[in-house]
């Protein structure tokens, strides 16, 4: 691209085409005062402080709205310009408190900066004390309109970045102010509390309540969902006092409410484990590491190797997981290792491996917004992956078409061109029906199918069973909508599919994933920017835990644990004998525990009692074990059942890497020392290994572990810590010169040709009947994460949502005589739980919705044991329940 040269204040500078004069000046180190400009927002031209003189132009154009042009001559400061600027600033200062020294934004305030530049030394106009009451209803930030200069950066951020539009300028003239619908406290608005507005505020009008200026900052990766936002932890006196987004490719500086406000609450919680605990006579007693380690070593050595196993953790680092599977295979001598991907995206790994040859998100977060059409199915993106949710909404604002398929009226529906409200569990019929519409309408990509796919004849033949009458009857979606959605997706060039657990957590989860892969292949939406099949992973490092081989059937880098060559390779590398038997999955370990064929389990960072379906079965299994070792940062419901509990360090207290949903390795950096008595997970596992006589666990740091990973897994061969310093690397990255792979399957599929796969629709296992007339579907809410062990330690998040409120349609609520916040019992064939009620049209009649965030309402007591036959992933999304009013909660 040709550079443009222009003259600013007598200096010859260059700028890129499309830049504004203000951007060109700032990039060349020339300060022009401004208050409403932000590089993340559209030019606004509101504050009028960036006015300049440009030869050949009349008046004083604003630099932030004027594009650069070749040979432009700009003057940024003349007596006339500064005179106007002073007038503007004097008008602002007439209303603004001059208490800079005691203001929280002192020295970080743009207004101060501009006043200093203009040499303002006194308030000339009479002071008008506005005396507006402070809105401190939000637990995390407050709004003090006395400091507001109406630059509108907050409202524009809420509009352009988060697309929530919770705050706007209300009223007019001198009465203009930043406000919510009805001018109510911010807590009563639709504010998602992401805090982006607070970050954007140039003054002290929006400030974080509990924050201090940090002594230093450490860049790391968020420990919550799979987006993997880069963040800076601000530390002072050993405590995290501030969090801000970093400019990682995953999040471009954005954070959600959990990442911004939900870190220190759990990292510094009083409830953190600080010592190993050994259960003696039914009670936990503090023990030394030596005592705990020798007991563990003795216990784990005392069972036949096929009766011992590990459940590793999606929240721990790659290095933690690598060491855990190495320990399991080399020291325990078994492939009995699994982790919670079994509960969520195992069908993705299986379904996409079968069709494409690789079970991961095909594209990158940043190219989702380049799609012409986004099809979000079974993904409540704005709550479960809030930052990607923002990207989707921004794309829609720019003209991208959006199709949402979800039984619930989720937030994205408001942005959708088409909303398919299909019955829970009918995804195969919906997706295959759409494919039939596309093929019948000759909208499929014949060239792509011919060149890149196989089995197309049998596949096309199989579509016969998905005629539109059948699809309409099964899914409950009017045929016109199915047809319109199919055509819209097919017309998109390119179209991208986003999905999450609404697709995978079914007894036909793998079929659902294959149906999605079929849809993408038929239309050729694979292997290019803005297209793809994009499973959004749920936990921070669930991708990494899979990649590192915390799975019974594969070593690190998806190398088969039942292949003799792989066995030989790892035996040589690790120096020991390895098993060639496929290991047990989590459900198999639990079933084995119940019938006495599985004896000892080592659980790392996983709260199975609340996260697994049918909790009674889990509790029975864990209680039936001879020996249960749990390693966690808290004494979770699962740890309470353990014989020995080991205290682990949190993400803020250790080094390592997380791999986010787009296969990007990103650094986790130690910001503070571990809570006294705790150790990083990999260190603990290494100590256990050494106590059991294991060799090859004497790592000095996590960088060494990564080097070992790179040496053993071809797809991670080029991953090195030095290379992760700038933005992370997306695998496959086979060697040190490889730049990483933002898009998979660009030339051919990982398995050669894509496999178009016929599917048969199967209904969910447990459907409603006269005794249990409602469908229960489960998921997440914005303010909490998983089983709540981390988020519920932050008081503010509990203020937003402090207990389970079952969503129920007004029609069902009326039948049962229920009102908001009534106490109810939700009962299934497996048990009952108590909860509150939220009457809402978000759920359709006949469906109720719950989360698994609350130990007080352990929803998984009642969920179904039905599993996907391929991956044994539980059917969390559909089971039959009934509801009764409780006498009291």
């Amino acid at each position: 691209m040709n550079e443009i040269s222009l003259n600013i204040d007598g200096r010859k500078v260059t700028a890129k085409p499309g830049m504004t004069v203000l951007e060109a000046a700032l990039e060349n180190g020339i300060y022009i005062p401004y208050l409403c400009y932000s590089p993340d927002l559209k030019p606004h031209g509101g504050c009028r402080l960036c006015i300049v003189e440009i030869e050949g132009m009349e008046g004083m154009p604003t630099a932030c709205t004027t594009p650069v042009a070749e040979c432009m001559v700009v003057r940024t400061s003349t007596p006339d310009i500064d005179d106007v600027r002073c007038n503007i600033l004097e008008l602002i200062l007439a209303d603004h408190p001059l208490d800079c020294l005691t203001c929280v934004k002192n020295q970080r305030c743009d207004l101060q900066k501009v006043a200093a530049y203009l040499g303002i030394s006194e308030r000339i106009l009479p002071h008008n004390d506005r005396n507006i009451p402070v809105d401190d209803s939000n637990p995390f930030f407050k709004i003090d309109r006395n400091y507001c200069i109406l630059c509108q950066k907050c409202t524009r951020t809420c509009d352009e970045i988060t697309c929530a539009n919770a705050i706007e300028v209300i009223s007019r003239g001198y009465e203009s102010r930043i406000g919510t619908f009805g001018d109510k406290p911010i807590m009563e608005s639709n504010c998602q509390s992401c805090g982006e507005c607070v970050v954007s505020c140039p003054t002290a009008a929006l400030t974080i309540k509990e924050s201090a200026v940090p002594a230093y900052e450490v860049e790391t990766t968020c420990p919550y969902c799979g987006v993997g936002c880069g963040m800076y932890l601000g530390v002072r006196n050993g405590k995290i006092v501030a969090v801000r987004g970093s400019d990682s490719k995953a999040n471009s500086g954005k954070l959600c409410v959990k990442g911004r406000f939900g870190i220190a609450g759990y990292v510094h919680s009083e409830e953190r484990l600080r010592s190993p605990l050994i259960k003696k006579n039914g009670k936990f007693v503090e023990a030394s590491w030596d005592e705990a380690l020798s007991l563990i070593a003795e216990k784990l050595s005392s069972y036949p190797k096929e009766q011992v196993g590990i459940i590793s953790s999606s929240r721990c680092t790659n290095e933690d997981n690598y060491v855990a599977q190495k320990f399991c295979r080399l020291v325990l001598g078994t492939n009995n290792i699994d982790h919670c991907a079994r509960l969520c995206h195992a069908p993705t790994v299986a379904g996409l491996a079968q069709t494409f040859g690789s079970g991961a998100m095909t594209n990158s977060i940043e190219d989702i917004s380049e799609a012409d059409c986004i099809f979000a199915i079974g993904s409540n993106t704005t709550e479960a992956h809030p930052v990607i949710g923002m990207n989707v909404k921004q794309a829609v604002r720019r003209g991208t078409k959006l199709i949402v398929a979800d039984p619930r009226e989720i937030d994205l529906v408001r942005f959708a061109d088409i909303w398919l409200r299909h019955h829970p569990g009918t995804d195969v019929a919906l997706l295959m029906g759409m494919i039939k519409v596309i093929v019948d309408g000759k909208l499929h990509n014949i060239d792509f199918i011919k060149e890149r796919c196989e089995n197309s004849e049998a596949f096309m033949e199989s579509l016969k069973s998905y005629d539109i009458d059948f699809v309409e009857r099964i899914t409950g979606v009017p045929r016109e909508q199915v047809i319109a959605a199919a055509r819209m997706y097919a017309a998109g060039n390119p179209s991208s599919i986003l999905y999450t657990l609404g697709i995978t957590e079914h007894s036909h989860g793998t079929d659902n994933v294959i149906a999605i892969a079929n849809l993408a292949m038929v239309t050729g939406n694979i292997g290019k920017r803005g297209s793809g099949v994009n499973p959004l992973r749920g936990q921070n490092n669930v991708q990494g835990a899979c990649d590192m081989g915390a799975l019974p059937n594969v070593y690190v880098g998806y190398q088969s644990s039942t292949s003799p060559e792989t066995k030989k390779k790892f035996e040589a590398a690790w120096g020991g004998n390895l098993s060639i038997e496929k290991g047990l999955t989590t459900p198999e370990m639990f079933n084995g525990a119940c019938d006495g064929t599985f004896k000892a389990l080592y659980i790392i960072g996983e709260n199975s009692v609340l996260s697994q379906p049918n909790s009674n079965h889990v509790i029975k299994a864990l209680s039936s074990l001879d020996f249960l070792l749990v390693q966690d940062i808290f004494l979770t419901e699962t740890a309470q059942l353990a014989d020995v509990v080991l205290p682990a360090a949190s993400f803020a207290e250790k080094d390592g890497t997380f791999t986010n949903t787009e296969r990007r390795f990103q650094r986790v950096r130690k910001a503070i020392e571990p809570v006294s008595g705790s150790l990083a997970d990999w260190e603990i596992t290494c100590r256990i290994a050494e106590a059991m006589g294991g060799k090859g666990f004497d790592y000095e740091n996590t960088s060494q572990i990564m080097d070992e990973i790179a040496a053993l897994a071809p797809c991670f061969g080029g991953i090195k810590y030095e290379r992760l310093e700038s933005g992370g690397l997306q695998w496959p990255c086979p060697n040190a010169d490889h730049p990483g792979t933002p898009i998979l399957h660009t030339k051919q599929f990982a398995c050669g040709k894509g496999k178009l796969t016929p599917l048969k629709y199967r209904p969910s296992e447990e459907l409603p009947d006269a005794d249990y007339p409602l469908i229960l579907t489960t998921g997440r809410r914005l303010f909490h994460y998983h089983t709540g062990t981390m988020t519920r330690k932050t008081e503010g998040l509990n203020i937003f949502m402090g207990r389970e409120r079952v969503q129920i349609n007004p029609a069902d609520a009326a039948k049962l005589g229920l009102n908001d916040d009534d106490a109810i019992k939700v009962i299934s064939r497996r048990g009952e739980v108590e909860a509150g009620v939220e009457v809402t049209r978000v759920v359709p009649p006949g469906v109720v919705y719950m989360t698994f965030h609350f130990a007080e309402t352990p929803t998984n007591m009642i969920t179904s044991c039905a599993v996907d036959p391929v991956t044994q992933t539980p059917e969390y999304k559909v089971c039959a329940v009934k509801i009764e009013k409780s006498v009291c909660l």
Partner: protein
Amino acid sequence: MDILSGYNREKSNLVSILQAFQHELGYLPEDIILRVADYLRISPATVYSVATFYPRFKFVPSGKKVICACRGTACHVRGGGRVLREIEKQLGIKAGETTPDMEYTLETVSCMGACVLAPAMMVDDEIHGQMTPAKVSEVLDGE
């Protein structure tokens, strides 16, 4: 709601829809704003922002009759202030208020474009020109 069905879901219809509801109901209740927002798929705060920009939109019910006194320059120099004070006295309310019996709401306007008739006042949509304090009771009684 019938009013909404008369408009397609283009955001540019926002002000027209609000005007229709204002005309129908005399004000814009919260549930109407929420419905309009839902219909146009924009945030309720955005609807509220637009609505609060225009003085014609009300957020509390108005009296049966809306009295409007002009405070424009022409009316001001010809004694509009005295007329306003007289209206306030007779109705027993200040500008911006509504009588407790919900009969009258009193408002002021910066100019109603009837400067040639200054000072002017308006009762609902009817303009009364060349007002004097003495004529106020006549106009109010006549209504």
